[in-house]
């Protein structure tokens, strides 16, 4: 008897396993708002031009009403000693990587949200507080957020930051591509202020073309790779550099979208609710059969 039940149980769990693993190749469904607009905007960051003046950091803070030191203090280059990351108090930071040869310049890299085309945060957010907007921005809705920080776990670039020290209404903070500015036809604050025009704002498609054009014009100046063109399914922010991106502490990422596998599993398990319902029916059937057999046995006794 015990043997019998065990076999049944094993069968059930085997079926379950098959149900979970077998349905992993469903196309990823996106919410209507998250369908990519072909005119979505982006920024091409040419790190070979950047001088590390950090005006973008100042402009960003000013545009987002974050507390900031006076502009003059941004000339202080000692901040480059340590690698910095965007956090809840500064949504973008510039880092410096020392020159490789004495006659070349140090490389400055601005870091902020990459505004992925297939954002992990949008996929992950339990309440859908993140959205990929038509103009390319990935923005956060403070009215929805419950502060679970799953977006931070999901983000392959480690960008969203959380106000850990706040007891009430802590926010998830990250670059919003100046959504409030672009909505009224202004440029993102960092793009507007950049003296060197390291940051070129334009249609993402045009920027990809421009990036490749630049590489073909100056093959000796650029490392032949446009970071963000394909990484994690493409990002709105694209980077050019004079050397391998891994030397500049860009994460090594594949070309498949970050949320791809988890969404495939998720939609596999919940394909039109068929697997859960099937499991329910199966268990119901097993229960009914066992009960009947039991009562039959008892009657025989």
């Amino acid at each position, binding site marked *: 008897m015990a043997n019998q039940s065990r076999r049944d149980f094993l069968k059930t769990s085997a079926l379950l396993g098959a149900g979970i693993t077998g349905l992993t190749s469903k196309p990823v469904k996106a*919410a209507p708002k998250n369908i990519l607009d072909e005119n979505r905007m982006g920024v091409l960051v040419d790190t070979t031009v950047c001088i590390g003046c950090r005006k973008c950091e100042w402009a960003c803070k000013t545009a987002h009403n974050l507390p900031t030191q006076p502009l003059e203090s941004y000339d202080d280059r000692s901040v480059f000693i340590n690698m910095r990351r965007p956090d809840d108090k500064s949504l973008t930071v510039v880092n410096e990587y020392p020159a490789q040869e004495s006659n070349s310049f140090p490389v400055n890299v601005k870091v902020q949200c990459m505004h992925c085309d297939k954002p992990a945060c949008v996929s992950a957010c339990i309440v859908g507080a993140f959205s990929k907007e038509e103009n390319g921005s990935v923005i956060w809705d403070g009215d929805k957020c*419950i502060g679970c920080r799953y977006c931070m776990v999901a983000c392959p670039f480690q960008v969203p930051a959380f106000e850990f020290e706040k007891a009430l209404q*802590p926010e998830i903070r990250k670059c919003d591509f100046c959504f409030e500015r672009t909505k009224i036809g202004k440029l993102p604050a960092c793009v507007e202020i950049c003296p060197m025009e390291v940051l070129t704002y334009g249609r993402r498609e045009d920027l990809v073309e421009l990036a490749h054009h630049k590489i073909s014009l100056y093959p000796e100046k650029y490392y032949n790779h446009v970071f963000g063109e394909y990484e994690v399914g493409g990002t709105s922010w694209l980077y050019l550099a004079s050397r391998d991106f891994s030397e500049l502490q860009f994460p090594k*990422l594949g070309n498949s979208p970050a949320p791809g596998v*988890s969404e495939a*599993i998720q939609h596999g398990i919940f394909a039109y609710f068929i697997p859960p319902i099937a499991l*329910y029916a199966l268990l119901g059937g097993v229960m009914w059969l066992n009960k009947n057999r039991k009562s039959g046995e008892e009657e025989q006794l």
Partner: protein
Amino acid sequence: MSENMKPVPLPRKYFTPTVIILCLIALVGIIFISARLLFGIGAVTNLSNQYPWGIWIGIDVAAGVALAAGGFTTAALGHIMHKEEYHLITRPALLTATLGYTFVASSVALDLGRYYYIWHPLIMWNGNSVLFEVGMCVMIYLMVLYIEFLPIITERFIGRVNLPGFLGKFNNQIDKLLRVLDKGLNKTMFVFIIAGVVLSCLHQSSLGTLMVIAGQKMHPLWQTPILPLLFLLSAVSVGFPMVIFESVITSKSFGLKPETNILSGLGRMVAPLLFIYLSFKIGDMVIRKTFVYLTEFNTASVMFVIEIVLGIVLPLRLFMSPSIRRSPLGLSIAAFLVIFGVFLNRMNNFIVAYTPPYQFTSYFPSIGEISVTAGFIALEVLLFRAFVMIFPIVSIPQPGTSKTKFSVRGV
């Protein structure tokens, strides 16, 4: 055998030295909980932008959910497979699961930056989010668990409703209500039992999917697309050991004779389940060729080896031995190892394996975090003891009584 076994409240002296220590641990936990509520997550935890999730998610939630798997596995065994001999362990398992999930939910709430918005997922849906699915499943399953628990309450109070003071005049109505409830539940309970098993399978596995989106931030020894399957298999494997362990402890604590026969019956089922879990885990490692990471000596590889050897292989061997299965001590040691293995697996998946691409400091839980986790566990044990004393949970031999209506019914 079950003919003369009947779940009854076990009136004992509540405070023992152990209970007092547990009370103190719980008190410290509560102090830190209030600190978190007053001053924010950052004031109490070591969480940062690099490590957004700590032990409150890795242990309280992930391991908590896994270790509460006894509820659905015994429900599946006792009611769906209809093994009546196991009915008498379903109630303690159900209580563990109910308390466990209640504390999982509390831990989640505590970990949320905006705990007062915990109801948001009910109306703000994101079907792509694994967390949304886990959240919804856990929420519904918690409701199901409460419903499954209701018959125990009705059983306790039908005919014994005795409210104090002026409320006394409602005694009759409440008694009637309880009887109606009891009758209705008796007929529909199977719906909830099956739902409970289905929901458990769903969220136990989805808990694994949760970390899939972290992609390369997770150590390759653990990061695999079959994480949901591994989580489900390990949850199923840990269900019975959890029941065994808890039953042995309860018996010991209340001075009862351990139900060795039933427990060793449960123990017989553990080995094959562990074997399946182990083979999937090893198979996954071989297919993805992640064994190369075992040649490195670091926290990840050591933890992985401990998880496999102490948490799966050793208990597998122990559970295969009939002599160990027959002794309560052997059973509890073997069961403890499985629990330890799954506990470690959850902690590894959520904490050890998580390596942020930009790492400035490494994460180790703060005193506050540990205190809160320990406090929750202590509270759970304390409540378990209180419930066992108030409600008919644990079955004890009844001298020569026949099967009554309320013997071991429903769940």
